[in-house]
């Protein structure tokens, strides 16, 4: 079982590497959203510092959900997902492997890039650290929730937008906690409670997520 898990993580990462432009696009999208704002709003440094954490977090969130609809869609289209459904290994294990490799390829880069973007908005070093940390803690649950939506919309027309629609309200707590953590740091308070909440939320989704995703895929195939 562990063998198949590892093999699937490796396969998905190989595939991601072969199509690295897709990943780059997600990262680029993130950079783009965050850089468009100063353009759209004007360059008042105080204003930028105020909106900085929010903009970066929204960018990360949108970039996540941009890549998620395709998490299962391509496997569905070429029917390799069928092979997974029919496999002796439990589907929830396979699904966890897929989400993990997606997180590694698509979300981890955001964690590293976010501080650079935060700098554009004039955030201090401590706030930048908390920004990266909050993203690292929050994005796993974004991935898992997004994957649930992706599985529910398998094979449906217009799945991309539908996923966005299903997922955005569910993302709000993560977004709010993440922004609050950074803003607390900016205003000299401790971000700890928010970070803990983020971590707890991520753990909870890791516990429930794979089951929900496997159920959702099962629903698509029955």
């Amino acid at each position, binding site marked *: 079982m562990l063998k198949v898990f590892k093999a699937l993580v490796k396969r998905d990462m190989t595939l991601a590497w072969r199509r690295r432009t897709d990943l780059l696009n997600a990262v680029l999208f993130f950079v783009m959203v965050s850089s468009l704002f100063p353009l759209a709003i004007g360059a008042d440094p105080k204003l930028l510092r105020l909106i900085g954490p929010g903009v970066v977090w929204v960018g990360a969130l949108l970039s996540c959900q941009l890549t998620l609809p395709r998490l299962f869609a391509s496997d569905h289209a*070429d*029917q390799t997902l*069928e092979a*997974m459904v*029919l*496999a002796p290994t439990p589907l929830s294990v396979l699904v966890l492997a897929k989400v993990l490799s997606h997180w590694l390829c698509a979300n981890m880069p955001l964690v590293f890039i976010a501080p650079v973007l935060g700098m554009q908005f004039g955030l201090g070093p401590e706030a930048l650290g908390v920004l990266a940390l909050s993203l690292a803690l929050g994005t796993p649950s974004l991935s898992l929730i997004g994957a649930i939506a992706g599985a529910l919309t398998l094979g449906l027309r217009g799945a991309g937008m539908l996923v966005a629609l299903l997922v955005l309200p569910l993302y709000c707590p993560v977004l709010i906690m993440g922004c609050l953590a950074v803003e607390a740091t900016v205003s000299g308070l401790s971000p700890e409670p928010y970070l803990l909440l983020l971590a707890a939320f991520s753990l909870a989704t890791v516990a429930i997520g794979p089951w929900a995703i496997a159920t959702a895929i099962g629903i698509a195939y029955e």
Partner: protein
Amino acid sequence: MLQVKQLTCVRADRPVFQGLSFDLKASRLMQVVGVNGSGKTSLLRILAGLLKPAEGSVSWRGMPIEQQTSDYSLARVYMGHANALKGDLSAMENLHWACLLAGRDPTQPVIAEALNHWGLNRRHHLPLRVLSQGQQRRAALARLSLLLDAKLWLLDEPFAALDTEAQEALEHLIARFLDEGGSVILTTHQAFGLSPRITDRVDLDRLRASC
């Protein structure tokens, strides 16, 4: 081994076939025939466990397939008309991964041999999408060479896109699998060389649901 009782298939509210029953023994070759749209693909998907029948049951060794644990997964191999391969992975990678998923773990040389057997000699490491349609189909079928220890193959139009040489290779492989005690259910519109070995036949045109 595989027992089908009073199977009725309904797709998108339109009945496709009804009242299908049969009992498939070991070493049997069953051909499913019927005009386009008579439900051959649907039947194979039901047998594989990818589609729920509207009524009736499918049992493997006496137990309904939806209650099976990994037993049936290891015993049955399903090949639909799509190849279930990734265009961005090479034939080698694709096969290795497909076998792992099916619960086997062949070594590289074994996989390479299977690919050579299917005439993909100098193409093990090319991304699959640059192969021709028939070469891709060959890569998909090479999986069967590695799954001879299974018990039941469900093949949906396996001969499509194959040239004569590959078609014969597949016929030999099926014959070997039958000899080793496996059973095969396949659909095809083409004539093929195994006609004398066909022991069971299901004609879906006769079971057409009145609609």
